[in-house]
């Protein structure tokens, strides 16, 4: 973190940037809020640690339209979102200074809570071990057991930025990112239906998944637009739950970088990334490996084609059981 602070101060001092989009400490040892630090205000409260999970790239849509140059801190996964947003002309790159920063995976406090730790007053990180102080006693957990879902299968390395701050080497978690998708595919349709009913019925339509998503940066979403014909504000029927999530996933298909923010922010813990990853997996298998945000030029798989593409009937053969 010190190296990041030093670098920012250097760039403040030499006038390269005017503002910094980073994270600010909160009330607990684990809550971090995206924050714009200014040259004048300094870096008071700045933090970069295992709890800075937010993908900051989406904030650049607004921040890059303001006067002056804004420095953005991008974790490796966020660099892809940044590229994708640039590809979609959402960011005025001339006003942005990108700095890639190292990441060893972020800690998901919800997981600690699910392990029964409540009343958390402090979390101290010591290498691969976390010491959690709670009102009801202290506990130790392995860092790798409480990583965010999105970090468990993350193999991303940072794309090119204006500046790169390297971190120490570390062993990436090696969960296969499609393992759960494959498990679901192996189920019977009835089992799959039951699985998704159970998950999606939790949805409260708070739109956190949508609003946090860098790919969902539309001025007015079809679900908010009464003229779209499919606007709806609440899950008034099972169908509306399914519909919302199918369309949400479909609208980001081929553009989703798999940053995993949707699942992370879902207050109901719905594994939304499994919908996105299904599309990613299908695209990879049917149209060739594609990573959204890998660069700012290539066409998305759903806005391109080859004459030899498979027919939709492949779903009958290839689809789940």
């Amino acid at each position, binding site marked *: 973190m010190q190296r990041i602070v030093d670098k920012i101060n250097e760039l403040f001092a030499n006038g390269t940037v005017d503002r910094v989009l980073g994270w600010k400490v909160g009330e607990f040892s684990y809550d971090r809020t995206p924050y714009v630090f200014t040259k004048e205000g300094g870096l008071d409260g700045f933090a970069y640690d295992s709890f800075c999970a937010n993908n900051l790239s989406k904030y650049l849509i607004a921040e890059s339209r303001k006067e002056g140059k804004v420095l953005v801190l991008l974790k490796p996964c966020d660099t892809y979102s940044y590229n994708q947003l640039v590809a979609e002309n959402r960011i005025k790159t001339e006003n942005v200074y990108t700095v890639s920063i190292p990441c060893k995976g972020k800690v998901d406090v919800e997981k600690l809570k699910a392990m029964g730790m409540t009343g958390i007053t402090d979390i101290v990180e010591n290498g691969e071990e976390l010491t959690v102080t709670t009102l009801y006693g202290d506990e130790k957990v392995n860092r790798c057991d409480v990583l965010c879902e999105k970090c468990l299968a993350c193999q991303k390395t940072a794309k090119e930025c204006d500046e790169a701050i390297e971190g120490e080497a570390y062993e990436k978690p090696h969960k296969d990112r499609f393992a759960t998708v494959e498990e679901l595919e192996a189920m019977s349709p009835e089992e799959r239906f039951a699985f998704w009913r159970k998950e999606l019925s939790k949805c409260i339509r708070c739109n956190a998944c949508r609003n946090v998503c860098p790919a969902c940066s539309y001025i007015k979403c079809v679900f908010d637009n009464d003229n779209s014909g499919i606007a709806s504000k609440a899950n008034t029927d099972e169908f509306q739950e399914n519909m919302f999530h199918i369309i949400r996933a479909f609208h980001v298909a081929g553009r989703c970088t798999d940053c995993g923010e949707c699942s992370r922010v879902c207050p109901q*813990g719905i594994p939304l990334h499994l919908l996105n990853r299904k599309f990613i997996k299908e695209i990879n298998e049917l149209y060739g490996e594609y990573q959204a945000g890998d660069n700012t030029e290539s066409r998305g798989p759903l806005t391109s084609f080859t004459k030899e593409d498979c027919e939709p009937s492949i779903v009958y053969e290839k689809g789940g059981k």
Partner: protein
Amino acid sequence: MLKISMENIDKLYAAIKESRDLFLPIESAGQVQFAEYTDDAVVRLDVLKTVKSAKDAFFPQSEDLMEFKVCGKEIDVIPPSGDMKEFVIMGVKACDAKSFEILDRVYLKEPIDSYYALRREKGLVVVQACGRPEESCFCNVFGIDATAPVGDVVTYLVDGTLYWDAQTEKGKELTEKIASVFDNADANDDAKVEASKAETKAIMEKLPFANLDLSRFNGENMMEIFKDERWNELYKACLGCGTCTFVCPTCQCYDIKDYDTGHGIKRFRCWDSCMYSDFTMMAHGNNRNSQMERFRQRFMHKLVYYPSNNEGIYSCVGCGRCVNKCPISMNIVKVIKTMGVTDNE
């Protein structure tokens, strides 16, 4: 006071179910919500906070209001039946119980919201004292005693036993009907309950937000707070999602929508969020155009406008759900701490 061992708790549920619908904190797909009890439900009375609050029982997220049937060029209006089975909601914590009072002040004031009133009339609230408060709890700031919740029946869950203490006529009536499932509690039990309450209270005092200062929100600084420059800082990270609103026990705004079924219209209302860009959208546009204004509205309403219309009662019960769930960790506590002191301090 009556008691029942948690081993036999299903008998209690079954007894209640005989005459009424029963809502309990039930776990499904890893999350606990108030939901209708069924035989295979996993009841989690031990869980402190459900994701959504208990307000669903009286103010559901979506609720049919009326129906229009279209037949040729004729339209039939089908009003709501006004009929509803009595129900019990159990396991409500002190904060949520207090939220009912806050909602009552909105919906039971003239003009009375008949849908809400009907549910209030048919519903019986069984509250439960808190056992293990969390770091995000701050109900005490609003004068709520987590160990003495207000409801038709108060319950305590201590060492695998549920203690049952009817408070109101409604509560006593139900208790009589199902008395056979209970044993009587004795003085020893009273002591156990008291000890548990004392233990909880001791922890409450140690909570990080126990001493949150609300003094600036005394109804006298409305414009000063409204115009405060620091809103511009606070709102900045806000995504404009409705998570805080939808997990909040006291948020009471709704939107009315029509659903065209092809044979007519089903008119329903559903929760709305002042964080949404189309909130209170009117023909001329929106009266709060920026996210800053929307963000400010939510907290001004909870901490300033509502109290000024309701004898100083805040529209927040300190349940801490928004603190837990906000995707960007911005919440009412941070707002209180920032706005609670004047800018030049």
